[in-house]
């Protein structure tokens, strides 16, 4: 049976890529079997956060920047707090930083599970969505929803609300939860951990195309912990630098097709942040059960296949659940729940790991405590150039597929990176000043 091959000439246009956060489109132009052009277009309308943050009080960014993204508000809140505390030369207690990590674990669990079960898994079954997936495997989807719910619950108990938590402030928390509040979550977290272990085995049975990538990977690294809430910025190219020095190494371009900016290393090289980068640069920091799951799943250390990020996200869900249980077991309620911060005229930097990659904030404060300049580098504007590299790779390797299959493949190649287009739109001061 002959189907229309993509090897002839064709345009693939996907307006409104489904099952991603935010609004993006995909354009591929193939001429006589030759790939002429690939563009990931971001038409998410700009919202100008960096502009209107100027003149706001130094204590406001956790509430305001949370609104950049409903899926990863904690990532914005945490990077904002670190950057402002850095500017004000303030240091929070270990207990406060640990409680932040616990809140962040909740976000990792809900966001990763959302992606693995509701957004990504349907691709591996050729289905349109998780509702269809539930028709053939209701048990799997229900387990996913159970895990997602406990992630949200953890955010509610620590953060006061799952979407746009209200309990986070510069310097710590308005109120720290009691040990009892947290212990009430333990049974469900343990159940979720069992499901997450099962999930790593389940997703490992999916069929993965053989794609290998070579762009540099960049993630936070830490002496003892799998990076979530803190660390320095390292890459497979060998650098390991502070968030400030990292910003000096990237240049953002503004291209016509996008309301997001493309970040490249030294202005030239596409790079990737997110689960594949963290997994590769922090394999030795995987928590014990996650490490066992990684070995059992057969995923090799150093895996560079972006389709296998679904395994990596599942492993990181195990990490977040193990970490949540460990933190609750050893929990010491921070007292006081926050440190008083005195604003000063200075610049501060903060970097943490959102579920989909590194997020860096930089603030310049005036002596009046008002923000003079704000810069926010979200993961998807960093990953956009690498995603386009993946698309070229996928298309070059699959010219013999018919057009519909190739379109599905391309969409999956975008979803591999869980792009948060709402986050990516309209960021970064691009003036080529570095």
């Amino acid at each position, binding site marked *: 049976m002959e189907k229309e091959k993509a090897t002839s000439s064709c345009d693939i246009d996907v307006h*409104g*890529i*489904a*099952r*991603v*956060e*935010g*609004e993006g489109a995909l354009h591929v132009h193939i001429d006589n079997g030759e790939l002429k052009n690939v563009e990931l277009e971001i038409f998410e*309308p*700009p*919202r*100008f956060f960096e*502009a*209107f943050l*100027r003149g*706001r*009080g130094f204590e406001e960014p956790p509430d*305001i920047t949370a*609104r*950049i*993204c*409903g*899926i990863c*508000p904690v990532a914005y809140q945490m990077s904002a707090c670190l950057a402002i505390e850095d500017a004000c030369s303030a240091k929070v207690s270990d207990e406060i930083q640990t409680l932040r990590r616990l809140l962040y674990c909740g976000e990792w669990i809900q966001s990763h599970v*959302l992606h693995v079960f*509701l957004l990504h898994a349907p691709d591996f079954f050729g289905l*349109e*969505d*998780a*509702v269809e997936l*539930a028709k053939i495997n*209701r048990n799997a*989807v*229900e387990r996913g*929803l*159970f895990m*997602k*719910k406990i992630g*949200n619950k953890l955010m509610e108990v620590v953060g*006061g*609300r*799952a*979407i746009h938590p*209200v309990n986070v402030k510069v310097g710590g*928390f*308005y*109120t720290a939860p009691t040990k009892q509040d947290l212990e009430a979550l333990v049974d469900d977290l343990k159940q979720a951990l069992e499901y997450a272990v099962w999930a790593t085995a389940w997703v490992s049975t999916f069929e993965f195309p053989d794609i290998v990538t070579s762009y540099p990977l960049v993630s936070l690294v830490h002496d003892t912990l799998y990076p979530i809430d803190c660390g320095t910025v390292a890459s497979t190219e060998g650098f390991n630098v502070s968030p400030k020095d990292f910003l000096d190494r990237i240049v953002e*371009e*503004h*291209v*016509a097709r996008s*309301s997001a*900016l493309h970040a490249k290393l030294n202005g030239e090289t596409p790079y990737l942040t997110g689960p594949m980068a963290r997994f590769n640069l922090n394999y030795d920091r995987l928590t014990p059960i996650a490490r066992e799951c990684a070995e059992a799943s057969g995923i090799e250390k150093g895996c560079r296949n972006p389709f296998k990020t679904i395994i990596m996200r599942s492993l990181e869900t195990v990490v977040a659940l193990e970490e949540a249980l460990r933190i609750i077991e050893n929990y010491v309620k921070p007292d006081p729940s926050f440190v008083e911060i005195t604003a000063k005229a200075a610049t501060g930097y903060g970097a943490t790991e959102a579920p989909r990659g590194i997020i860096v904030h930089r603030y310049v404060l005036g002596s009046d405590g008002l923000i003079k300049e704000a810069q926010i580098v979200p993961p998807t504007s960093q990953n956009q150039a690498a995603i386009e590299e993946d698309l070229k790779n996928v298309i070059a390797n699959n010219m013999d597929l018919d057009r519909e299959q190739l379109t599905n493949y391309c*969409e999956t190649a975008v979803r591999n990176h869980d792009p948060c287009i*709402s986050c990516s739109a*309209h*960021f970064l*001061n*691009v*003036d080529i000043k570095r």
Partner: protein
Amino acid sequence: MGKAKLAVWKFASCDGCQLSILDCEDELLSIAEAVEIANFTEMTRKVTDGPYDISLVEGSVTTANDAQRIVEIRKSSQTVVAIGACATAGGIQALRNYADIDEYLGAVYAHPEYISTLTTSKPISDFIKVDLELRGCPVNKEHLIELVASALAGRKPRIPHFSVCEECKMKGNVCVLVGQKMPCLGPVTSAGCGALCPAVGRGCYGCFGPVKNANTASLATRLKANGTDPDKIRRMFKTFNANTKAFEREFSS
């Protein structure tokens, strides 16, 4: 009769309100059985043409293209519900309405000419007739379920129309404004969140927008008397629901 067709549409927003639908973990599969999800890009590749029985609209209108798109959505929908602070008030991105948009573009983009944007961010009701508005940044997911359930049953949804103060009393929170002189927008803010902020020991920051007949001037006077810096009071009103008459007059005067 077939299943009711539900569509979810996104405009300028953070995706948090539509995420609230996916956050209904216990109800999601039942909702998908009770209604036909005919358009919901964040959840499914499947797209079914209109007409739609219920359209949930997230986000504000900030581009010329979106100003046309919302009119088309109105034409193909029996009931249009605006969900969240962006759709009901313009959202935090409405701060551009009080600034110079060209200066904003220059501050964020190297090539402002690549960007097509309106000078304002406005709520859905500025462009079309909206049948119902759900407040909140983000909306309360229980209100969303109540809304869909009531629409299916053909009755009015039960959504609170009083202030956060009353929610605080019901919850037994000690008043942070009277007791600790904390700046709090609870007296002028719509209920719906469950008085979350006073419960963790901070003042309400108004993310559900103004309650009907909000006496913001009186509250601002009280906050000043309590020693809150007047500039800070102005900034408190100038956030997620800035582009509402009640809040606007407290920072633009």
